[in-house]
């Protein structure tokens, strides 16, 4: 696939297409002829990505272009080369509405290429602009088109209104890269033209003071070993609060399930950090905010539990052996009804004054902690102490588990493992990246096993509750209950398998090598 040339930017911003005139001026003697392609056109451009920039991170850019000829979706790679394209028009000739799931796009190569990257997330507009474009074709001596030269005068309308300098894009035709490069070099050498390596989307976002990839669910805080622990934890909590708040509108609007997921992770990380390292905050903030964040966590649980069920339903249905997949449909309907109710409750809670006060008061505490001036302990000492303590608890809890231990002991161990994982992530910037990453990966294997054990246990219990509710609502045909029984049996099998795998995974985690890895982290931090 050909690489796109960097755009060229005549520094005549704001005036009508000088860029187009420049192209014409550059051609005499160049060995290229120009043919006017489509006449000047105004197009509306919308760049789409998931909230967590999955396309951008995968090196892809998805653009919806609407004009007189209808709507086209164009997916390009990092080098600007087209990966897939698709025409779109609904019966009324309107483009789809965003945010929306991938199935708003026509089935075909574009949707197939996007599906594994986008996953369960919705696509939403990350930028919008209106462009007046004029396309010319550059012909070589055989009158063959070797490149398209597009003069583009763009007004950004979202995330903020802005005018971009006129842009000239040289799009090589496949197989004619070298000739297109010669043409681009000639244009770039013209007085008043500068080269812009950024793709159009990045230029658009920059004009609004944003950048692609500026949200991720990860804790992105740079701590230093010697900084006061209170300052460090205030920075961590502030980053978690920012993640939490970033996901509130999407959760209320119910755009996709992952807004709530990321919100819950931010709450859980906050709760664990409060419990394990929150003592460094001033004025008994830990004791005050632990119940507040527990309330918030509990508020989000019913909807998330139902999301997990609904997301897993296709796989559950596919695993049925005795029952017909259609038998589970009433169960799916019941889950969706329950979820709608839970979502209303959740949205109400997130709009409540209680939640507003929690955020306001918490921010005040963090602002104060960031500047409070208590110099001891240092961040590294806090990290080492808390990681060591939780690691000991994980080792002790795991060692006490035998073949006859009740499920609750594994559930408790899972909680400790989560706490350890969060601490490793929170203090990751204090450690050598490779060492921290390996420790987290090893822990992750054990966590996945414990998670499978607990989730299947909880889901079996919930399945019984759902069956009772459906009986009460007279929404449970006999064949549905039988199919649900088969699902429950499948969950029990998965739970037994997880239990059988636990001992091996734990002994690996508790091995001298595994312990040495955690010890290295705490030594480095201490």
């Amino acid at each position, binding site marked *: 696939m*050909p690489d796109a040339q960097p755009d060229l930017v005549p520094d005549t911003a704001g005036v009508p297409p000088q860029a187009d005139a420049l192209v014409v001026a550059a051609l005499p003697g160049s060995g290229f002829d120009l043919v006017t392609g489509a006449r000047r056109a105004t197009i509306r451009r919308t760049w789409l990505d998931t909230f967590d920039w999955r396309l951008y991170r995968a090196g892809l850019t998805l653009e919806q272009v609407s004009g007189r000829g*209808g*709507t086209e979706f164009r997916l390009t790679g990092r080098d600007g080369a087209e990966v897939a*394209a*698709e*025409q*779109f*028009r*609904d*019966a009324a000739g309107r483009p*789809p509405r965003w945010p929306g799931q991938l199935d708003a796009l*026509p*089935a*075909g*190569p574009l949707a197939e290429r996007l599906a594994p990257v986008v996953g369960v997330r919705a696509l939403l507009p990350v930028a919008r602009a209106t462009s007046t474009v004029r396309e010319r*074709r550059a012909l070589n001596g*055989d*009158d*063959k*088109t070797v490149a398209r030269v597009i003069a583009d005068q763009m007004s950004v309308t979202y995330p903020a209104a802005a005018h971009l300098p006129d842009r000239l894009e040289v799009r090589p*035709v*496949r*197989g*004619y890269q070298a000739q297109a490069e010669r043409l681009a070099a000639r244009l770039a050498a013209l007085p008043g033209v500068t080269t812009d390596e950024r793709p159009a989307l990045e230029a658009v976002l920059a004009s609004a003071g944003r950048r692609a990839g500026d949200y991720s669910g990860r804790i992105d805080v740079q701590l230093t070993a010697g900084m006061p622990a209170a300052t460090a934890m205030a920075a961590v909590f502030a980053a978690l609060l920012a993640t939490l708040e970033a996901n509130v509108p999407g959760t209320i609007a119910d755009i996709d399930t992952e807004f709530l997921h990321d919100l819950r992770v931010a709450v859980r990380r906050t709760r664990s950090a409060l419990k394990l390292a929150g003592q460094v905050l001033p004025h008994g903030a830990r004791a005050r905010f632990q119940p507040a964040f527990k309330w918030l966590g509990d508020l989000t649980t019913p909807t998330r539990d139902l999301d997990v069920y609904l997301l897993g339903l296709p796989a559950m249905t596919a695993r049925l052996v005795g029952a017909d997949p259609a038998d589970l449909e009433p169960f799916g309907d019941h889950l969706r009804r329950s979820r709608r109710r839970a979502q209303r409750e959740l949205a109400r809670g997130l709009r409540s004054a209680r939640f507003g006060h929690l955020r306001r008061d918490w921010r005040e505490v963090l602002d104060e902690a960031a500047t409070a001036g208590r110099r001891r302990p240092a961040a590294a000492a806090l990290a080492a102490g808390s990681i060591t303590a939780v690691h000991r608890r994980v080792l002790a809890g795991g060692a006490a588990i035998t073949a006859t231990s009740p499920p609750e002991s594994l559930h408790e161990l899972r909680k400790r493992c989560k706490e350890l994982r969060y601490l490793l992530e929170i203090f990751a910037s204090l450690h050598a990246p490779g060492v921290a990453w390996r420790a987290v990966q090893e822990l992750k294997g054990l966590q996945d096993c414990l998670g499978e054990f607990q989730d299947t246990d909880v889901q079996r219990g919930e399945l019984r509750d759902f069956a009772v509710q459906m009986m009460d609502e007279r929404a449970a045909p006999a064949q549905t209950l039988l199919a649900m029984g088969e699902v429950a049996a499948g969950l029990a099998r998965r739970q037994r398998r997880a239990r059988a795998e636990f001992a091996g995974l734990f002994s690996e985690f508790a091995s001298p090598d595994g312990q040495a890895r955690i010890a290295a982290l705490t030594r480095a931090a201490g």
Partner: protein
Amino acid sequence: MKIFATYNIKGGVGKTSTAVNLGYLAARDGYRVLLWDLDPQGAASFMFRIRPRVKGGGKALIRGTRSIDEAIKGTDFEHLDLLPADFTYRKLDLMLDGAKDPARRLASLLAPLRSQYDVIILDCPPSISLLSESVLHAADVLLVPLIPTTLSVRTLDQLTDFIGDFRGKKPRVLAFISMIDQRKRLHKQIAEALPAQRSDFAATVIPALSLIEQMAVERAPVAAFAPRSQAARRYRELWAEARDRGGLPPPRPPGS
């Protein structure tokens, strides 16, 4: 991905005109199309103003020492690419003879293009050779232009028998009357009788029209430079029949 091949043992029967126009029409329907000009004369390459040259020649492609990807050129039309002819293609038979499983070599060369293209059209040189056998094995649909003579029908029967002996996948045959002279009674009789009698014949007939010959002057598909002409209309009808024969869905109503 569906592979169509225009094939006839005889030359000058309209293979290249068909490949060029059907390639253009498929691309205009929104399919991603690659046309491989396998004829060393390079007529299809000429029509698209692309030089008939492949780095390393046919040998590099057949042996796999140079990827097909690198040799592909974009035409002036959206979604339509061309793998150009090369004069060394005149020795493709010999090159194939040295390859492993020569009859299926083209199919295996084209397989990696599955993610890039929905439609591949092979424009074959007139011959019966190892190359044509490899083309017949690779193709899903064989488009066979026939001039309306009794001998042409005999040739088609021989071809059908030959394919009938294939083990495994066999291409579906879609023969059609090409270069019919409307003034000749025999032409008209054959053109009317054959599609009615045989299921491997297209209902569409491509007449001998000067506009089709004009393609070599315009260096473009007739469906592009004279879209409202009778010639363009006939090629559109032929493409619709070929698409159905290949089991390709009609172009998606946008937004569906």
